[in-house]
């Protein structure tokens, strides 16, 4: 066992795991905070919706599509000057978060839009008929009804962010991905590679499990 994993520096792995956790956690938080309102706006301004606004929808949709169509590895690099301006560095855990949010938020926004569209139009109509304002319809009916879908969206976004966070190792982002690239790839330490990948797999499994449970808990259908 010792010989098999001779290159593995366990304290280093511990630190890297924690960094990954922090990167995913913080970028997920900001992605949800930014993506949720964008998703709601996308839904509301869409065709035949409450605040139908073809121009606003087109602009918003275009921005989201642009961010989503740039491969994340490119987004990481393109974002560097902006990240430096925002945080002071493009390296380490902190430097990875802006590009992660830039990648995660539009992704999550689309998922929110989709799950809001799944809400039965009849429920919106009934709420309108009760004399609800648009704000009341959003917070009283739309979001509670779409909650299971939104939670599923958060899970998918979190998992996407795990893989994005690993990728950020390429530009010195820190975390398990950084370890895998520096040791597993550049120094041919296969054992480090195996361990980091195994940890990432476990991490994703746990996220999916928690997500599934929450979705089940909040589904009343």
């Amino acid at each position, binding site marked *: 066992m010792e010989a098999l994993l001779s290159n593995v520096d366990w304290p280093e792995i511990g630190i890297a795991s924690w960094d990954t956790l922090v990167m995913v956690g913080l970028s997920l938080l900001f992605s949800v905070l930014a993506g949720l309102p964008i998703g709601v706006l996308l839904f509301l301004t869409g065709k035949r919706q409450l605040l139908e606004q073809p121009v606003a929808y087109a602009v918003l949709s275009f921005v989201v599509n642009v961010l989503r169509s740039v491969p994340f590895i490119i987004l990481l690099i393109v974002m560097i000057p902006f990240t430096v301006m925002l945080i002071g560095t493009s390296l380490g855990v902190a430097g990875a978060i802006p590009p992660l949010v830039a990648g995660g938020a539009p992704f999550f926004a689309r998922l929110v839009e989709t799950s809001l569209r799944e809400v039965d139009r009849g429920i919106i109509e009934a709420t309108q*008929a009760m004399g609800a304002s648009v704000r009341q319809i959003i917070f*009283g009916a739309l979001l509670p009804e779409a909650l299971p879908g939104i939670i599923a969206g958060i899970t998918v976004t979190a998992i996407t962010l795990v893989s994005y966070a690993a990728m950020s190792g390429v530009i010195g982002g820190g975390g398990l991905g950084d370890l895998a690239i520096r040791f597993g790839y550049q120094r041919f330490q296969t054992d480090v590679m195996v361990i980091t990948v195994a940890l990432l797999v476990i991490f994703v499994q746990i996220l999916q499990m928690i997500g599934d449970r929450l979705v089940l808990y909040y589904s009343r259908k």
Partner: protein
Amino acid sequence: MIVFDQVQKSYQVGGRAIPALHPTDMTIETGEVFGIVGHSGAGKSTLVRLINLLEPATGGNILIDNENITRYNAAELRAFRRKVGMIFQHFNLLSSKTVADNIAFPMKLAGIYSKAKIRDRVQELLARVSLMDQADKYPSQLSGGQKQRVGIARALACRPTILLCDEATSALDPQTTQSVLRLLAEINKELGLTIVLITHEMDVVRRVCDRVAVMDGGRVVEMGAVSDVFLHPKHPTTRDFVFESESIDSQEHQEDLQKSNGRILRLTFKGESTYKPLLGSVARASGVDFSILSGRIDHIKDTPYGQLTLSLVGGDLDVAMSALEAADVHVEVVR
């Protein structure tokens, strides 16, 4: 009182205006149960949604208790909608809320009721629709009839003066339909609520409505007291609906009539005359022989009625007809 004054609605489809409701005049009295029947696409759904402006009118005025609701601004419209309850074919309950929370929802939206007040009112409404023991269940755990009862309780929460029913029984089985209709009739009587209901089943109209409008192709083609419209339909669409509800195939019916000899009369009894043993005595007095081609005895709301199609041979037809008319029977010569 709900007054439609040249109200119309059209949709813009590809730059063209497609009319959904042609200019319509109509008055619905306070406290009555007003039915609107029509096939799907006849415009009844649009008509009922004009009453709470879920569909904005593209022309004309809608006056409710002498207020022109088409002139309301957004805030006035929201306040007005609280006074108009609505129930739906697919119930449209919030799946994420319990039965009690669904019923409380309109009161919470109104923002003018205290927590204690809402709680009491929810209990009261649960009792009214006989769902006391289902308060903490979610809609998915209820049957269709129970869901519609929750819908009714929710619609009544803010003490509306008008209740709109959009195909409220169309997704229910016949027995459940009966009980929901009974509940609606009860509410109408006890609360003095005006009920406007749309349906494609003439039977629903027959059971609960006072007056009815028949719609076809975005127009009201016939309107009047249910007993008049039901027993003496004038427009072909109305006739189809009445036949449909009596499970009469109109073509077969015509063939049946052709096969019989003699004079064919349709007799309509209403109220007390329904139960009188009239035919025998008329036959004896006039010497006519009759055979019954079709017949039925039923109720329109609370009034019993009977309708018989007879073929008469021999005897003195005029004596028979005047005897029938003297006994308060409406006589219509079919052939």
